[in-house]
């Protein structure tokens, strides 16, 4: 059975990201809901003769505005992700894509206690590729790293262009040195890599995974 990168399997990746985003938005709504309820409580108390505390009201107002900003950020990420399927082949900035995938994975990585940290990059590093498939293979790399790394680990990520390929380098992965029977890259990664003209290189002792992407997909 082959991994259907753009059909069912691609939809599963898309669905997983959207479900995660919906959970994040629910959490924001829960905070806004409770703070709105607290305002309601203060109004009821004031009607019964309890004096309103302006400092408390300011604090609640600030929290609600912070949550609105937070929701806006979440929805911006969702929008960018949604638009990644607008065009089959497009020239994109790999650094931008990597930063988006780190944001989309934040909820998953927080749950396992692993942090992803982008190195400093000054100029865009562009390739012509299928944005959705690239996001999918990056997600698989992050997902597998989260399974392998230990809670408390910070995995660093650097995007480079060596003139021939664009590289995404993940390093500081503590669980790689003990990886013997772990199936990565599996069939699904192999099929995506083939579609992207890419390859994965794993250095177990160095705790490093490198994703090579050929920059000139036509």
């Amino acid at each position, binding site marked *: 059975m082959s991994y259907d990168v753009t059909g069912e399997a691609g939809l599963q990746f898309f669905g997983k990201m959207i479900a995660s985003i919906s959970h994040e938005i*629910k959490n924001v709504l829960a905070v*806004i809901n409770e703070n709105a309820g607290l305002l309601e409580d203060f109004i009821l108390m004031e009607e019964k003769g309890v004096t309103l505390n302006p400092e408390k009201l300011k604090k609640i107002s600030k929290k609600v505005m912070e949550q609105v900003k937070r929701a806006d950020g979440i929805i911006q990420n969702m929008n960018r992700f949604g638009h990644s399927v607008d065009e089959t082949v497009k020239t994109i900035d790999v650094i931008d894509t990597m930063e988006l995938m780190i944001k989309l994975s934040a909820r998953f990585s927080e*749950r396992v206690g692993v942090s992803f940290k982008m190195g400093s990059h000054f100029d865009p590093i562009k390739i012509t590729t299928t944005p959705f498939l690239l996001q999918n293979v990056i997600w698989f790399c992050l997902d597998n790293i989260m399974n392998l790394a230990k809670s408390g680990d910070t995995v660093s990520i650097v995007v480079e262009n060596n003139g021939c390929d664009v590289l995404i380098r993940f390093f500081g992965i503590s669980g790689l040195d003990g990886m013997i029977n772990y199936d990565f890259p599996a069939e699904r990664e192999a099929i995506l890599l083939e579609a992207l003209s890419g390859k994965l290189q794993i250095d177990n002792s160095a705790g490093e995974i490198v994703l090579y992407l050929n920059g000139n997909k036509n």
Partner: protein
Amino acid sequence: MGEKILLVDDEKDFIEALGERMENRGMNVSTTTSAKDAIKMVEEETYDAIVLDLQMPEMDGIEALKAIKKINPDMQVILLTGHATVEKGIEAMKLGAMDLIEKPADIEAITEKIKKAQANKIILVEKKTEEKIRKIITSKGW
């Protein structure tokens, strides 16, 4: 006397506001953003009910529920989730949760479930007391 509640959720702004609303309604509320800290608190204190988020970093709600039930099998735990499905509900009940509520939650619904939790706890305490008395009577041959 107000119900004694432990609120557990990694969203600090959420449990601060919910905790204050519960206290406005006469409940005695403790809060924590860490499931691991919640387990330590359950070892040291008794609560009428625990309101526990399903998805938290370090330890999720299901793992926390199992650990809490190991310490106190009679503890009444209400799970909070962003997406309540029938499957999740069944899994939670099988593990001993009292109920499952979807966020954002209505304070009246939460309050009602907490009152139910306190009533459940009273019934369980009474049953245990009856059992103790019966054992004493039987052993003394009265």
